């Protein structure tokens, strides 16, 4: 913006320089002067309805609303004159006439914008002696309650639901002083249940079914961490009382998601206190699992692993990691496999082909991986596969934001009529599985496709070619060679092209980045890259195996046919849905599982360790766009331990038995320090992370003979979670499960 001439205006006798088009209210905030407002909300359409931001402007006879007034050269604004203060006081007096003043029991008491403003700008007495308008409170859904008398009609909720969410579930009923907010289905809501309306409400008019009347804001502590559900990495601030999570929101607008959270981020935390949480280690004796002491469980695990190792050799053991554990835990997990047991039989449930993308981009990856912020800033978006509204809600929010704010164009190639279709400039309907063929055509104009499809793809190509910036976003439908072709297509476009692969879970990307892959070390160096191996050998001791190991489905199959003797599962449920030869533990001699709940895999395990959730630990996770953020421990649940602890304990036990070296990291932060040094692309600035921000990792691989890269069909598989499901965790999110919308979804 260097070539844009700034505008200078005077605010309270201070010169302020702002870019042209800046609103006066933003200009005042720039110099730390508060001009109060209720209806003004950055990012939403302007209203000028609450009249709280009235300011004096020289040469204008009437007070002006700072929220709609554009700063112009030489403008003289005063925000603190008698007239302005009088107007604010008057507005607050008007507002309080029908407001119930039930602050002592109102959820919002203590963090209410109206309360704060009356405290700062209001009158000290009330002159209103008439009867207030009363209406009974309404329950709109399990999650959303509406108390009309408290409502100050700032219409933030209506706007965020319409403009932000594109759900349009809220409207305004009646008129004048009787105006109320109305839900879309007579007396109830049918929507995405994101709860944005609750959070954006400046007063206690919209309250949360999970939080209301439970506690007071000042009784809680606030822990900002990363949502543990989908792969988008929204920052969520957990409000905690007595080690228990009471609610989640992101009112400080920090993080890549700013104020956005979907239903899972906002309400999906109750699994932490689900009665089915495993709270003690268990060891199988006969056909039952019995609770045992930590000593016994750890001892048994180490001893039996050693037995299998001694009898069957390195590759008789397999490791399947998690999509939700932290980078540090994943890093230790693969170290355990590779350095302690000397096997590359390590993998996880892959929901997006990050390896494929990084490989296809090669050295260009550093500059070509799209961040969430860039997704909202791109002039054009090509979306192939996936249903971001359901599976990647922040990505969908960012796409809508771009369309709303900078008129971004959205092009969709999808086999389903996804919700984003109605925002699309062009929607190309494919048949299931046609994505690679469509991409191949776009890249090389090869292949047999129906002529009407060809026509549409040619149009999309031409439209994208005319854009200065293109974001290409794709789901699990595009993997392996198809990604290489997508990148080939992108490289032919005139504009700057960046890519984002959409995975499923909170640390799907981190799992891949940390090398929970049978053929890749942390940072994607191929396992046969001796220099890369040596680097890790120096850190961990021992010799790392150079031959690629088994993939997760292959391991499950090997368990069935007896080629694998032991399986170590950390936070995954592979034996119920991976593999082609059938499910269950097959001919395994030993099955060890870290889990929060007794999943199908845990139920049939020999040893089960109770694992802490992401909300109960420190560490870091990497979202699907490669942005790393820190987890912070919010809840304290009796019993479980973090996977970091579990792996550390086990490593010590194994060392005593002569297997590998014990892990001497005292904290996850210490592991992270090693990751920063050892994993290419992870040497991110610590400052940003420590202040609660996200830092972009810069992973890339040199084209070392392994591109083009392809993956077997079915290895990359999205679980197709919806807004109301979240893999295993979702089944234990009681509130989410109870919603009628969740039932309506397949």
């Amino acid at each position: 913006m260097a070539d844009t001439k700034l505008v200078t205006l005077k605010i309270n006798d201070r010169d302020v320089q702002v870019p042209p088009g800046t609103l006066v209210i933003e200009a005042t905030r720039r110099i730390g002067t508060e001009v109060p407002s209720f209806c003004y909300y950055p990012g939403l359409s302007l209203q000028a309805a609450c009249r709280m931001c009235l300011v004096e402007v020289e040469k204008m006879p009437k007070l002006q609303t700072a929220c709609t007034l554009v700063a112009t050269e030489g403008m003289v604004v005063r925000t603190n004159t008698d007239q302005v203060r009088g107007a604010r006081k008057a507005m607050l007096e008007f507002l309080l006439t029908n407001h119930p003043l039930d602050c002592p029991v109102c959820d919002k008491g203590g963090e209410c914008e109206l309360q704060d403003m009356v405290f700062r700008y209001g009158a000290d007495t009330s002159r209103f002696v008439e009867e207030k308008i009363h209406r009974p409170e309404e329950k709109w859904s399990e999650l959303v309650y509406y108390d009309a008398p408290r409502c100050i009609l700032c219409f933030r909720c209506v706007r965020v639901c319409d403009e932000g969410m594109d759900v349009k579930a809220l409207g305004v009923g009646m008129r004048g002083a009787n105006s109320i907010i109305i839900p879309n289905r007579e007396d109830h809501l049918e929507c995405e249940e994101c709860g944005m309306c609750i959070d954006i409400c400046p007063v206690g008019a919209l309250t949360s079914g999970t939080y209301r009347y439970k506690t007071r804001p000042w009784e809680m502590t606030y822990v900002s961490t990363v949502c543990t559900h989908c792969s988008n990495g929204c920052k969520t601030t957990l409000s905690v009382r007595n080690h228990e999570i009471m609610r989640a929101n992101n009112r400080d607008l920090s993080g890549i998601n700013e104020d956005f959270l979907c239903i899972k981020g906002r309400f999906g935390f109750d699994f932490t206190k689900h009665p089915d949480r495993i709270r003690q280690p268990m060891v199988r004796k006969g056909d039952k699992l019995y609770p045992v002491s930590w000593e016994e469980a750890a001892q048994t695990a180490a001893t039996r692993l050693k037995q299998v190792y001694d009898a069957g050799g390195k590759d008789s053991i397999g490791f399947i990691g998690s999509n939700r554990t932290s980078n540090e835990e994943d890093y230790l997990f693969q170290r355990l496999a590779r350095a302690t047991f000397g096997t590359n039989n390590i993998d996880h449930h892959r929901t997006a082909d990050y390896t494929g993308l990084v490989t296809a981009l090669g050295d260009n990856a550093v500059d070509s991986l799209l961040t969430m912020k860039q997704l909202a800033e791109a002039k054009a978006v090509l979306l192939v596969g996936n249903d971001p509204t359901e599976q990647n809600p922040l990505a969908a929010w960012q796409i809508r934001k771009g369309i709303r704010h900078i008129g971004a164009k959205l092009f969709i190639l999808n086999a389903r009529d996804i919700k984003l279709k109605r925002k699309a400039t062009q929607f190309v309907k494919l048949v299931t599985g046609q994505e690679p063929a469509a991409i191949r055509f776009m890249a090389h104009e090869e292949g047999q496709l129906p002529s009407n499809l060809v026509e549409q793809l040619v149009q999309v190509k031409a439209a994208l070619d005319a854009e200065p910036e293109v974001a290409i976003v794709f789901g699990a439908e595009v993997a392996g060679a198809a990604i290489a072709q997508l990148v080939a297509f992108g490289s032919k476009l005139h504009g700057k092209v960046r890519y984002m692969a959409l995975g499923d879970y909170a640390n799907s990307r981190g799992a891949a980045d940390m090398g929970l892959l049978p053929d890749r070390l942390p940072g994607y160096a191929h396992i046969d890259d001796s220099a890369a191996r040596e680097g890790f050998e120096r850190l961990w001791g021992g010799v790392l195996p150079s031959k690629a190991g088994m993939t997760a489905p292959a391991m499950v199959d090997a368990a069935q046919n007896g080629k694998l003797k032991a399986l170590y599962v950390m936070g995954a449920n592979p034996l119920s849905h991976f593999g082609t030869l059938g499910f269950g533990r097959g001919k395994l001699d030993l099955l060890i599982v870290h889990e929060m709940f007794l999943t199908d895999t845990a139920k049939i395990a020999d040893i089960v360790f109770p694992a802490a959730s992401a909300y109960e630990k420190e560490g870091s996770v990497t979202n699907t766009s490669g942005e790393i953020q820190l987890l912070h421990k919010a809840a304290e649940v009796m019993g479980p331990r973090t996977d970091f602890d579990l792996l550390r304990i086990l490593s010590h036990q194994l060392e005593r038995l002569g297997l590998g070296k014990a892990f001497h990291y005292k904290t996850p932060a210490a592991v992270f320090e090693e990751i920063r040094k050892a994993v290419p692309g992870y040497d991110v600035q610590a400052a940003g992370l420590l202040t609660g921000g996200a830092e972009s990792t810069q992973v890339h691989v040199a084209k070392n003979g392994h591109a083009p890269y392809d993956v077997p069909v079915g290895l990359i598989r999205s679980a197709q979670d919806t807004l109301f499901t979240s893999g295993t965790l979702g089944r234990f999110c009681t509130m989410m499960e109870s919603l009628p919308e969740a039932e309506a979804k397949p």
Partner: protein
Amino acid sequence: MELSTQLAARFEKLQTAYPFKRSALIPMLMYAQDEYGSVSDEMIAEIARRLDLNNVQVEETLAYYSMLHRKPMGKFHVQVCTNVACMLRGGNDILERAKKRLEIGHKEVTEDGVFSLEEVECIGACTGAPAMQVNYDFYENLTALKFDRIIKELDGGRVPPPEPVTAGALHAREPGETPLISRRWGIKDSRKIDVYLEHDGYKALEKALKEMTPESIIDEVKKSSLRGRGGAGFPTGMKWSFVPKDSPKPKYLICNADESEPGTCKDRPLMEMDPHQLIEGMIIAGRSFGAHRGFIYVRGEYRYVLDIVEAAVVEAYAHGYLGKDILGSGFDFDILTHTGAGAYECGEESALMESLEGKRGYPRIKPPFPAVVGLYGCPTIINNVETLSSVPAIILEGGENYAKRGTPKNGGTRLLCVAGHIAKPGIYEIPLGMNMKKFIYEMAGGIPGGKKLKAVIPGGSSCPILSAEEIDIAMDYDSVAKAGSMLGSGGMVVMDETTCMVDMARRIMHFYAHESCGWCIPCREGTSWLKKMLDRFHAGYGRNEDIDIVGELAKNMLGRTFCPLGDAAALPTISIVQKWRNEFEDHLNGKCAYKSAEALVGSR
């Protein structure tokens, strides 16, 4: 849902009539209600489906408009006006009579479902006060006897013929009157195109299309110093010249026929008796700034007027005055008539555009002004019925001649409706600049019953009220402004010495509280608070401090609301508190001797 053939056909037509489908929403709701008596959930879903809307978008729009109902009203929906003009002439007595006679209250339905009753705001029959509407039919100059007779007939299943013409519109012309735009009133079938053509009809259009350029039309209107007759008095020619010439977007002309300023009923006879004059004015206006489509937004209550205008539009198409290549000039112009659904706020130009787009009638942020960003985001000019109806005369006699009829900067004639305590209530066409006192006492016959004049609302209830001592002024925009009020919409309401000004303040505030759209805090909460306070005060439960609070609250609204409705509520209130403070004090002392307050004070 299954619709009658007629309604289905109406829907089909409406759905495709507008540049954007959603615009059909309010008319669809109105016509659906006409047939079913109310709007059901199924109907909401049906309309939503037809217009590609969510149910909640239909519901919120519906909920805004006072004429639309979710629950069935009676077969005969009796709507008694008690707004200022009617109140002064016994509107409250008629309402009481209605309650007794029908044995139901406000918004209630008789057990047999035949009648329902509603106390309504100004229905635009001020010169025929007290008045009511039964469904869309007007009955004016009511007495208890006349009311009973109407109800009796309705009860027997016969609909008594409604008043054929706005009461007070037709009267022997006073010597001081200068009929120009009302000159065809009273001619038999004046609304028919043949009659219009016999009386100079469409001559101005011919002149404008054949002899004038768009620029010269605007120049002529500028020379005429025609100022907006809706109330604000903005110079019309200047407004037209604001439309950007190079805009690639279509340009629109809207005729604001949402006449609802209490005390005003001049647009109704203008459309009722001379719809072609309006149509002609619109085509000329459209020509001047390059609009090819005009809308006539008629308030929902004026359904019979809408039907008349619609018929005239059909005639104009048939005669080639509307449509493609008008009079061989190459100029195309289409007109669409559109019904409102009961909302004073929609008389505000930007709220009207929202309403015309099928939304709640919330005003828009200005700038941008409609001439640049208006209907559907396109350059739009909105003019009042009387303004547009004056255009043919200006073109015919020339701007300068027209201007000479009035005073400098206040060109031409204007229609003045005078109602309330006046001997000859009616609609008069007078030159701008006529003396108000002279008008009241000489032309309108003065105050009946030998009573003394107390106060005058010069141009609709939004104006500061003038006391008897303040009316020796010229009635043009500037002189009335100098006297501290506004010429406004031409709705003059006269109050004699028996009028209780506290009651007047109370009634005025009721109106604005009812009509506040609810968008901005000061208007929404201020009008509601003041209404409650004035109710209490008038009922005899006032406190000394209340008098000052009323004035202060009104001042707290003034100039701080989103749109002028807040000012409209504040200005008359402030003027009453200032000029008739003694009456507030009398109330406190239980000494209010005025008839209208007697019962209330006595009941203390």
